[in-house]
Structure formats: C-alpha cells, structure tokens
C-alpha cells in the first residue's frame, strides 16, 4: 500500500518540484539526475511535514528512512570518479533493484522484530528465581584448581589489539584531506620569513583548508609561537611570530 505521507510529501527543490514519489520515479528513470538532487532538502521537507502533522507514523517514517538512506548510498556511488568505471555502471534498472532489495530487507527485519516482540510477550508470567546462593555454598575454595585457560589466548588478544586498522581509502572522493600538522608546517614556514596575513596563509585554499589553518593558528598561539591581530570582524588577520618561540623554552629548560 502506498503510504500516504511519503508519497504525498511535496517537494520544492532547485531541480524538481512535486511529490516525493514522482521524484523517486524520475530518478529511477534517470530523468532527474540524482547528483543534482539535494537529498538534505528532501529530508528537511519531510521533517517539516512531520512537524506540521504533529504525530509520527513509525511504519511510514521507517520506510522513508530506508528509501532516503538507499538514495544517499546510490548518490555517493555516482560521485565516484571515472576510474572506478565498474561501479559507475549503475543504470536505472540496477538502482531500482537496489532500492527494492533494501526495502525488502528492512521489511523482513521489521517482521522479525514483530515476531520477537510477540515472543517476549508470550513469555509474560514465566519468571526465574534470582537469589544469592545460601551461605554454605558461597565459600569457594581455590585449592586444587586446575588451569583451564590457555595463556596463548592472552598473547593472541594483544596481537589483535596491536593491529592498526587499514585506513579506508577515500582517495576516490573529492574531499580534500588536510591535516593540522601540514598547516602548522605551512604557517611556521611563512612565519620564519616574518609577519604574514591569514589571507597569505590560505591563498587559493578551499574552505576546509581555511578552517584547518585556523585551527593550526590557534595551536601556534597556544604554544606561544605566534600572535595575531584582527581590527574588525571579517577584517584582515595579521599574524606575527613571537619573539621567543616555544622551543626556546624547551631548550632553556633542558
């Protein structure tokens, strides 16, 4: 049965305006490019509807979540660059199969969950005793206890814990990766040549790099390596190296 709320969810997005189920159909037929659909806006619209209705139909909400999650996954797969050619071949038929499989899987476990709830309810009234042992049985003697555990199990557990998980490769995503360490090195390089502005430090950089550079700057300040002045909000930030960098202290101390 079409669930009223999901189907009737009216969307007004940049690339599409109309009901959610129509959007879904068009996406599956590739008449609307999933890459251009702001899924976050779909979620926000849905939240607005929920808020306006004031009640939450769990069945419907669950279906929406499964659908939107599957769409997100499809979309993220579409965002892979060309070198992952195989994964790119996601035609509408496959997208449909994938969505269908996801919804069926979710449905199966919802039914299983219902079964478990009924099962638990059917055990209502079956209670177990939970009482401490009588004192005479509480005295445990360790004499004559044989070894039952393998010491190697402990060594093996430590070995497993020493394994550093392989870093998941996100090279195919366009997320710029920049570390505070890199930006610290960059700032220190600039400051060795004297004062600089924040704009100098982030010329041509993307938003994430700008943010990380700011973190790095705060770190430098905390360490007493640099200080800065900003005359007005959004104004230029002038950075100058401190006269006594932190490592001098360390050297003096040691």
């Amino acid at each position: 049965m079409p669930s009223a709320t999901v189907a009737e969810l009216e969307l007004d997005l940049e690339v599409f305006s109309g009901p959610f189920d129509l959007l879904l159909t068009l996406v599956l037929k590739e008449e609307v490019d999933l890459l251009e659909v702001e899924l976050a806006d779909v979620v926000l619209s849905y939240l607005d509807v929920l808020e306006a209705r004031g009640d939450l139909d769990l069945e419907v909400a669950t279906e929406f979540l499964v659908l939107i999650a599957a769409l997100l996954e499809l979309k993220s797969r579409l965002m892979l660059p060309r070198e992952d050619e195989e994964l790119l071949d996601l035609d509408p038929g496959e997208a449909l199969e994938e969505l269908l499989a996801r919804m069926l899987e979710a449905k199966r476990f919802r039914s299983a969950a219902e079964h478990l709830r009924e099962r638990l309810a059917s055990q209502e009234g079956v209670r177990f005793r939970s009482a401490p042992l009588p004192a005479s049985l509480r005295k445990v003697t360790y004499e004559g206890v044989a070894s039952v555990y393998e010491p190697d199990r402990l060594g093996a557990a430590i070995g497993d814990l020493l394994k550093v998980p392989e870093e998941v490769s996100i090279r195919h995503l366009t997320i710029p990766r920049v570390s505070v360490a890199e930006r610290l090195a960059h700032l220190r390089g600039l400051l060795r040549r004297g004062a600089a502005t924040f704009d100098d430090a982030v010329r041509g950089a993307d938003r994430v790099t700008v943010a990380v550079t700011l973190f790095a700057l705060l770190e430098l300040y905390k360490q007493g390596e640099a200080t800065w002045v900003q005359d007005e909000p959004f104004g230029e930030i002038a950075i100058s190296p401190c006269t006594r960098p932190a490592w001098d202290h360390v050297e003096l101390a040691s």
Partner: protein
Amino acid sequence: MSELARTVEALLFLAPEPVTFVALREACEVSDDELQDAVDELKRALEPGTRGLELRELAGGFTLATSPDAEPAARRLLARPRTPPLTPAQAETLSIVAYLQPVSRPEIARIRGVSADSAVTTLLERGLIEEGGRSQFGAVLYRTTPLFLKLFGLKSLDELPDPSRWDPTPDEEAELRDRLLRAGEARAGGPPPLGAGPEVVASAGPAAVEPASEDPVGADG
C-alpha cells in the same frame, strides 16, 4: 520422587542460570541414562498445571520457572514487571543481531537506514546482546546472549523461525516494484516518456531499460 530427581530439582532451584545436562550429570555423579530418567521424572512432576513451578529447557540447559498462572500475584508481591517490552527500534536491532550475528553497528545501521547506537546500548545494558569478537576492520561485532534465549523462551538460536517466512509474496514484491517505479507516473500524467513500463523492467531487469541518457557523472561537471 526418586532421590536423584529430588537432587536435580534442588540444583535447578539453586543455580542462577540454566544448567546443562553435562553439568548436572557431573554434579550428581551419575550416568547419562540415570540422569535422563531423573529429568523425565521431574518433568512429569512439574507438568504444567500441577505445581507452581515448571521445568523448562532454555538457552541450552534446564531451569525452573514459575507457571504463568501465578503472574498476577507475583506482580503484586514483587511490584515489578518481569521484563519491560522492547521499543520498535530495540526489537528491530535485536532481530538483526539475532539473525545476522555476529554483526557490527554500521551493518545494523545500514539495514535500518538509521543509526542503531542507542538501541545497541540499551540492549547491551539489558544483557540481551554482547560483544562477540571484531570484524577484520576492528569494528566490534555483536551477538545475542544466553539471557536473550532465556527471556524469549528459546532452547537455542535454531528455534528462531526461518526469516524467509517473512519474505513478501511474489505479488507483494511486484506491487512494491511497481510502486517504486510508477508511483509518480500517474501524477506526471500521460504515458511514461521512455516507454519503459514497469513490466519491462520487472521482466528483464537492467538491460530492458535503455535510457541512453547522458552519463550521470557527466552531468556533474
């Protein structure tokens, strides 16, 4: 009642958890056959409707439990329910763990379409699930506990019904497929622009739809 059956009854009364056949046999220092006879005798003596207690086989062992007839009085005396019911999120998470164990949090979240963190935490606290190793990436995997079996009245996990019994019928599946593909068409009005009705897709899958549209990625640039 034979002395051995009496001893078994006493042991099950004292033991905090279900006791396996082997543990009972070793404690009583008898043969398999002797113990089996005693267990059978006890089972008959505690036949439902005979006594206030019943002998149950749960979580791989034997245990004594109250007969449900006494529940109203038990509730008045103990002033607490047996075990609180599960919320839908907890039940869903528990069913995923029960059927797919061992399973990681991300996998549970993927199936549910939504994070399972709070449900997992609650189920851990209630002792219904526990850690059961790690995935190759180091993620903790979860499995159900003996307490889960005990509270849900199961001898073992094998007693869980085959999940395929909840699979939709072919009709239901066709309807869902139809709905996914066509839901919006009625609103769009007119025949589907690509002329690919759901039947075509349903029958032949990917190959049937040849939208020949631009590469989806190309649209990105």
